[in-house]
């Protein structure tokens, strides 16, 4: 196995992550950490990225799981209109998938199963 970092470090805080970069302790998440994770995913965080990340975090706080893609699409359509809020637009923001990649940046666990 190649040497893979097992922790993020930002502002002197060390946050462990799993093999794929998902935070082990979601309580350690900070916006600065999100920027660092996004960088390792080659994503420059814009306002729209933050909109998604914040929505995921709010939803998670309420339901202990990330929202379904359809729910996320609906929310973004409400905010940005049909063109900038559809599934394709979300994939343009997070090429590896709004559920998995955005969850990683938001510090949330990876959705598992047939998804």
């Amino acid at each position, binding site marked *: 196995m190649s040497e893979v970092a097992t922790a993020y470090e930002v502002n002197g805080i060390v946050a462990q992550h799993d*093999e*794929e970069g998902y935070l082990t302790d979601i309580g350690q998440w900070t916006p600065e950490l999100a920027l660092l994770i996004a960088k390792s995913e080659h994503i420059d965080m814009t306002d729209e990225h933050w909109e998604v990340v914040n929505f995921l975090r709010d939803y998670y706080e309420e*339901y*202990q*799981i990330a929202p*379904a*893609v*359809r*729910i996320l699409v609906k929310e973004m359509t409400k905010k940005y209109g049909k063109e900038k809020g559809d*599934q*394709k637009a979300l*994939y343009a923001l997070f090429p590896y*998938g709004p*559920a*998995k990649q955005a969850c990683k940046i938001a510090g949330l*666990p990876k*959705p*598992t*199963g*047939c*998804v």
Partner: protein
Amino acid sequence: MAEAAPKFDPKAHVVGDPIEIPALACGAMAGSKPYVASSAHQQPLGFPGELVENWQEKAVARLGELVDNSRALRVYLDSCVKCGACTDKCHYFLGTGDPKNMPVARQDLLRKVYRRYFTLSGKLVPWLVGAEDLTKEVLDDWYSYFHQCSQCRRCSVFCPYGIDTAEISMAARDIMDTIGLGQKYSNEIIGKVFNIGNNLGLPPKALKATLAGLEEEIEEDTGVPVRLPLDEPGADILFVTPSADFFASPHMEGLIGYAKVMHEAGVKWTFSTYASEAANFGMFVGSQENMQKVALRIRKAAEDLGVKRLVFGECGHAWRVAYSFLDTLAGPFDFLDRDYPVPQHVCEFTYDLMQKGKLRFDKSKNDDFRLTFHDSCNVARASRMGDKPGGQFEIPRAILRATCNHFYDMAPETIGEKTLCCGGGGGLLTDELMDVRIKGAQPRMRALRDVADEHGVTHMAAICAICKAQFSKILPQYGFDMEAIVSVHQMVSNAILLTGSRQAEEYDAQQKPAS
């Protein structure tokens, strides 16, 4: 490896004969391995947390137990004559060229160990009969190559001895779990079913909110209050579906279709939070105990809710478990109404209503879809639908033809009982296996490219949550639209004319001659 292999460019490989035999690439996929399960994911399933010290001894003992308990497995291990009929039938071999992905070679990773320890010739003259000690190198090969088999059983169709290769992969994975070398993806998920009730880890509150949101959406769209009931006492039907239907796309679009059909049928039905999962990854890891524990949840939910019928949503291997094993695992289901199939597939349910003339469709609503159908491996080769042989092929196609004007099948050697796996089945639908998933999908992608070029096919429908998730990821790699994969009941949802809906009114107004 000394030299890195050139990167595989799917778009450069999408045109060609889907089942073209590749040039051999020895050892090309030896590095493909899923993440190993940690003790947190092993122990809830009753497996050791990490590789045990005397793993060799334990593995051989476990293999002995398995062949003692399963006459079938022993016959599969004894009877191969190396005729070669299966060599070029595996999509992972076709996509990777790695000879260890030839089904016969993959099976031999286990067979040679079986011979060494359980046959007389293997004990006495191992070098003459291809028998080998279970070494660390062999175990590494097991971990790598038994996780490059989706247990799709296409190779078994061509085996003159009827060897069920999936059973051999399952046995190998069972042995690895027993010695503490489990696969993270499947085992973490099975643990979630025990803890939360589904693969996704979707808690009841979230499930309830999701279903309520869909009810609102459907009513907004149709004007009809279609319900998606949860844990509803007094329901006649328990509807069990993969939890991906509550989360991913195009799965959820299919879920909306089920609800509309149930509404139009006028039946009392419900989902269950306790059995909010149709999938049963216990089968993938070859663990009878875990498969049974998952299956018993469905029985308990059916009993607790007092339902009379059991209907399954679009999930390939769940239908295999339900159709072929449910009675053995969790039966007898003598408390259910025997006037209906136990269990029933949602496609059978919908088809039955169609036959009775109870569903109306406006096919033109699907005119943007020029469709083909991907037979999912577990439905195609391990189950049936309806009351005629081949019903599992005919019924989903009949539904698509009834709801869409444009339907074209892919090449005959790539569909029906010879269907190609999506490349993500059998517990391989995990991101670290993306390379083998992409390459394993190549035969299917070529077959799709063919009908796209010849008939202008734009979309492919499927009735399996894994196929849908796999294709959403893989299609763009091969130059297709990620939304080119659809649910069968998504097509039903688009075209159905619910009684009293806006769509039905508009349709009927168009049918009337202008006065």
